[in-house]
């Protein structure tokens, strides 16, 4: 069914970005533009986009057919024709629902957070562009359009991470994010190309590919599935391409919230879900994805237990949760994975916003051991943060419990006990490090005597809305075992290649187990950190504290070796061989010229001689030829 709304969902934030960019240009070149104007443009456009999405969602709920909107033919090369076309099916509308909603709330939060910043207008221009890119990615009808959004998201993350570009570290972090993502992007491009050939060039839109997937040979499908997943690894920060995510914390906090909750990192999960028909037909790759997810989840959780930077802890927790999502999509439980994306968007956005409030309250102090006692000073932030922590730890009835438990149950049912075990241990660690964070920041006694308390409504309003979401989102997929409707599962049922079917007894047992594990984690954190001695702060040391030295290893393996290669190219190949050859040639010409210049000595007699000699030679030649005749 054709609809004009799809385009507007994307165009509105994009227009917001352009208008804000124009205002900002006017602002720096001519006359000051009030922050309010930027804020209004920046926040209203995502909200209207959200309303449009909601409208489409409700129509789909009524049983309407999938929406689509064809704008124009974009490319036609040989048999390949790519249309600028957007697709609003159950998956993409579900995704864009919370992308616009959570994105909108983060925009509101950013109004308060960025208040008084020099680059206020620029920030909102980037922010809207980020959202627009994400929406292009989500609503794309074929992988090529998806790739526009994919790259747009990458560019915006780069711009926003290095937002405070006067600090070299931020710029480095932005570069790192961009470069690591490029590695993944290469995989994505190759994957799409492989898929295109695997399908005998029978069209590139998702619906066409889905219909023709049986034509492809299995080997090529495995290859393209693997290559596409490399793209997902880069965007969704999975082992081994995760290194950019913790460094991305260099940007202002609203960006972290946006990257981690609604956009960017969920793109990888979404892409795998979008290609569900591909991954369902190659189970080996699915299993590979699930293992990468499990490893990433565990790995990040282990690192998070030793970090002292509040935002880095949250960054690693995001990576860990993304690992869960990949376990689910890898095993074919797409609805569970996407449901976790959905709940995660709420509580993670909230956690980041809360962290931002805590950071602001102490004048941009990010070390958790220098905070403490925030509960009294920041009651709303503290309360919402607690909700987020409980939700991510997986305590019922908060949203994180339902989504995480569904994933673990799925792993158990599929007989992947190793993955299940890793997931359970990660759940324990998650509860531990999140409550460690909470106790240290909000409960522990503090050294700080005075504190600047931030009570801007724009900061607390989104927090409260998200808190409601973090509590209630779980009920959207209330499991059938409790006579719930399991709405998300049935909504996205067509994606799933496997169904959850286990006896109620096992399901209960698994739930109890995961609650017990979470409770154990909380208990350990309580014992250790509730009355923590603030005068003995933890430091990041040891193997875990140093993040397993992965950054250093990468530095030696890739950065240094590539640098060495560049130096070799510059100093040997370019300077010596290529330049040497060129310089020798030009020097040769100069030398010949110098020798020849002696002839031209301005002496008339010599000139006369040359002339005569020339005439003689020509005459001789003519004479010879005449004789020849």
């Amino acid at each position, binding site marked *: 069914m054709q609809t004009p709304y799809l385009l507007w969902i994307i165009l509105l934030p994009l227009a917001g970005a352009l208008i804000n960019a124009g205002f900002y240009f006017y602002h720096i070149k001519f006359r000051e533009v009030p922050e309010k104007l930027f804020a209004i443009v920046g926040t209203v456009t995502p909200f209207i986009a959200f309303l449009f999405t909601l409208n489409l969602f409700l129509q789909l709920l009524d049983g309407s057919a999938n929406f689509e909107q064809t704008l124009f033919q974009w490319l036609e090369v040989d048999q390949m024709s790519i249309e600028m076309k957007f697709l609003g099916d159950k998956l993409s509308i579900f995704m864009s629902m919370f992308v616009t909603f959570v994105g909108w709330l983060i925009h509101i939060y950013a109004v308060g957070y960025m208040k008084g910043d020099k680059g206020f207008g620029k920030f909102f221009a980037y922010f809207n562009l980020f959202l627009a890119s994400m929406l292009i990615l989500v609503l794309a009808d074929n992988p090529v359009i998806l790739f526009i959004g994919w790259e747009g998201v990458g560019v915006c993350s780069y711009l926003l991470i290095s937002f405070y570009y006067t600090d070299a570290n931020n710029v480095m972090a932005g570069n790192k994010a961009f470069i690591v993502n490029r590695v993944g992007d290469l995989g994505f491009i190759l994957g799409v190309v492989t898929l295109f050939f695997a399908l005998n060039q029978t069209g590139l839109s998702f619906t066409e590919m889905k219909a023709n997937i049986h034509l492809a040979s299995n080997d090529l499908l495995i290859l393209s599935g693997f290559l596409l997943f490399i793209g997902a690894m880069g965007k969704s920060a999975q082992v081994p391409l995760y290194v950019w995510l913790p460094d991305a914390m260099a940007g202002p906090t609203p960006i972290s919230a946006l990257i981690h909750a609604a956009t960017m990192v969920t793109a990888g999960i979404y892409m795998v879900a979008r290609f569900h028909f591909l991954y369902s037909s190659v189970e080996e790759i699915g299993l590979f994805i699930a293992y990468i997810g499990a490893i990433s989840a565990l790995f990040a959780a282990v690192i998070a237990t030793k970090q002292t930077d509040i935002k880095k802890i949250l960054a690693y927790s995001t990576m860990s949760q993304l690992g869960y999502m990949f376990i689910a999509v890898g095993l074919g439980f797409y609805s569970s994975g996407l449901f976790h994306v959905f709940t995660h968007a709420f509580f993670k956005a909230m956690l980041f916003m809360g962290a931002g409030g805590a950071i602001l309250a102490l004048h941009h102090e990010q070390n958790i051991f220098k905070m403490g006692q925030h509960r009294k000073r920041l009651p709303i932030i503290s309360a919402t943060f607690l909700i987020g922590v409980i939700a991510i730890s997986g305590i019922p009835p908060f949203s994180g419990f339902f989504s995480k438990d569904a994933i673990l149950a799925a792993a158990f049912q599929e007989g992947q006990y190793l993955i299940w075990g890793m997931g359970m241990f990660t759940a324990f660690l998650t509860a531990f490090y999140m409550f460690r964070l909470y106790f240290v920041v909000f409960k522990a006694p503090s050294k700080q005597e005075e504190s600047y308390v931030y009570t801007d409504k724009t900061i607390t309003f989104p927090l409260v809305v998200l808190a409601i979401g973090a509590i209630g989102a779980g009920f959207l997929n209330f499991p059938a075992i409790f006579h719930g409707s399991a709405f998300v599962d049935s909504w996205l049922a067509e994606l799933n290649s496997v169904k959850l079917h286990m006896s109620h007894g096992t399901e209960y047992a698994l739930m109890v187990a995961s609650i017990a594990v979470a409770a154990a984690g909380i208990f350990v954190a309580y014992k250790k950190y509730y009355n923590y001695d603030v005068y003995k702060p933890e430091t990041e040391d040891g193997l875990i504290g140093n993040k397993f030295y992965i950054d250093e290893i990468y530095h030696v393996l890739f950065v240094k070796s590539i640098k060495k290669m560049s130096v070799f190219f510059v100093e040997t190949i370019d300077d010596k061989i290529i330049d040497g050859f060129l310089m020798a040639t030009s020097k040769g010409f100069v030398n010949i010229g110098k020798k020849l*210049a002696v002839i031209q000595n301005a*002496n008339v007699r010599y000139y006369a001689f040359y002339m005569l000699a020339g005439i003689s030679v020509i005459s001789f030649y003519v004479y010879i030829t005449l004789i020849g005749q």
Partner: protein
Amino acid sequence: MSSLTGYAAVSMILFSLGAIGVVSRRNIFVIYMSIELMLNGINLFLVTFARYHFNMDGQIMSIMVIAIAAAEAAIFLSVIILLFKTKKSLDTNMFTQLKEEVK
């Protein structure tokens, strides 16, 4: 026709002497005279062949050459005077200002 060969040989010798003079002598006057010698060598050639073919074209041509040589003499001599005024010398090796030193 042995006499034709003789005339031709003389004119060629005259021309060659003139050419050698132009190249080898340094005095501008001598160079000028050598040029005249070349012109006259050519004139002799033209006249010889005109006579040989009973065709007056060559003779007319030689008359024109003589006329031009006379005009040229006027210019050449005045140029020589000017050159002498600048350098107080008639040595051609002195007049090499158009040269640029090669570094």
